[in-house]
């Protein structure tokens, strides 16, 4: 069954970000141009410090670019974007349901309308039974689920995900990746997903953007041809997957080495 792809279209052109660091200036992003079509799941990989988080923060409105433009076309979306952070960023003083409903509360969605949406989001991530719990009573995996529900409940034009599963143990990561793919297959939203794992990029996305070490530029964009619905376990064991992973590693390898040399200098 083909689900209609829906979400915002993003057009990033010549994006540049420079910031002051002590006495000098650091060029974090340079000439980044990327078009993302509605409903596309794009993963960005790159060595640490390549500015991939900066790119996401600019899209999220948490930072501003020094140059270049970003056009987001999100007709009919009340909420342009919602971000899922690396550390869940759940408010410890709010219950699970209050955290999930936060983006509705700030936008003054009336309780009558908000309650069923929060319910649906909690069910979507399997946390309906934990709605009255506080974040410190949840495991790391459940916290990230809650953060994902908080993003989905606002029905954003695009989801911005900044290594959301990086802090989880390997088993939880596999489970949450599968859940994210399942949720995405149901909703077909535009997703921009940052990771340092090639595996993750190939398992989740339609395209993988490889970035260079500082300053961050786009080195190569690789199409990921695997069809949906995806079974992540069988997919990751397939020869096509292994070959593509190796291709991407070859593109990425120089940059990782360069980032290391830079850091050790």
């Amino acid at each position, binding site marked *: 069954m083909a689900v209609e792809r829906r979400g915002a279209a993003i057009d990033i052109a010549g994006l540049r970000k420079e910031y002051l660091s002590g006495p000098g200036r650091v060029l974090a992003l340079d000439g980044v141009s990327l078009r993302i079509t509605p409903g596309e799941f794009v993963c960005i990989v790159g060595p640490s410090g390549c500015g991939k988080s900066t790119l996401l*923060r600019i899209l*999220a*409105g*948490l930072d501003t670019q020094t140059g270049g433009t970003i056009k987001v076309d999100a007709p009919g979306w009340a*909420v342009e*974007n*919602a*971000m899922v*952070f690396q*550390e869940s*960023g759940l*408010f*410890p*003083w*709010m219950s699970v349901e209050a955290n999930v409903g*936060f*983006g509705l*509360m*700030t*936008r003054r969605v009336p309780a009558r309308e908000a309650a069923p949406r929060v319910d649906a989001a909690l069910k979507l991530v399997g946390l309906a039974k934990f709605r009255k719990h*506080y*974040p*410190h009573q949840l495991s790391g995996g459940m916290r990230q689920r809650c953060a994902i529900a*908080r993003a989905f409940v*606002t029905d954003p034009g695009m989801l911005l995900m900044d290594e959301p599963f990086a802090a989880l143990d390997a088993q939880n990561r596999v489970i949450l990746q599968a859940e994210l793919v399942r949720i995405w297959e149901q909703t077909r939203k535009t997703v921009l997903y940052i990771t340092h794992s090639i595996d993750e990029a190939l398992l989740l996305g339609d395209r993988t953007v490889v970035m260079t070490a500082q300053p961050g530029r786009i080195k190569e964009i690789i199409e990921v041809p695997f069809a949906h619905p995806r079974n992540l376990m069988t997919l990751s064991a397939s020869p096509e997957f292994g070959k593509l992973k190796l291709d991407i590693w070859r593109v990425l390898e120089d940059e990782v080495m360069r980032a290391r040399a830079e850091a050790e200098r």
Partner: protein
Amino acid sequence: MSGLSGKAQERLLYLISPIGLLVVWQILLMLGFGDRRFIPAPTDIAVRFWSLLASGELALHVGVTLYRVLVGFVVGVVPAVAMGLLMAMFKPVRIFFDPLIASLFPIPKIALMPLLLLALGFGDASKIALVAIAVFFPVIVNTYVGAANIEKIYWDVAKNYGASQTVMFTRIVFFGALPTIFAGLRIALAVSFIVLVAAEFVATKSGIGYLIWNSWELLQVDVMFVGIVTIGILGLITSVLFQEVERWAIPWKTE
């Protein structure tokens, strides 16, 4: 084998040192060390405590002192919390208040008592104002520090999820600072008893401070001790109640 739980046993152990001290004190006086007219034995204090309690005199002084502490505490804490949060959120507010706090905090607040008597007269208002001023400073400093040290990710999340300044203030900064605010309130509670009892030494006819000072002038040493013990008991009770309030107000705080 005792039937008590580990926790109850631990609580009983806490009583060993204070009870031991009282027993030693009593025995030394009974053996003739010290003059019982100037250093009453625990039993003398207990007897006097009971008679003051039975006559209703103690309750009167306790009531007056608690009333002044409570009203002064609320009057001082509410603006301190609000201004501490505003200082953390807005730099101009911080720049305006920082030097004022730095210069006014170290002034012993009891030194303001004559001024307050001049301004507000000999009634409750001057004592309440003194308590309010004394609690204001530790609370505003703690609130500001707590709010300024909220993890950056909470600001990011709030901003990305469309929080207005009002939501930021009431849902994020206030709650984020709440554990530190409570640490400030705890200090403020002790401070309020300290300054109030000192203030009640002069210019009033009621309150625990008055009871102590008056019995000094009449050389009723046992009544003085009753006053001192009463303050200790009040401090203990309010502190325990305070812990309960804190547990209720900060359910997310892990033990």
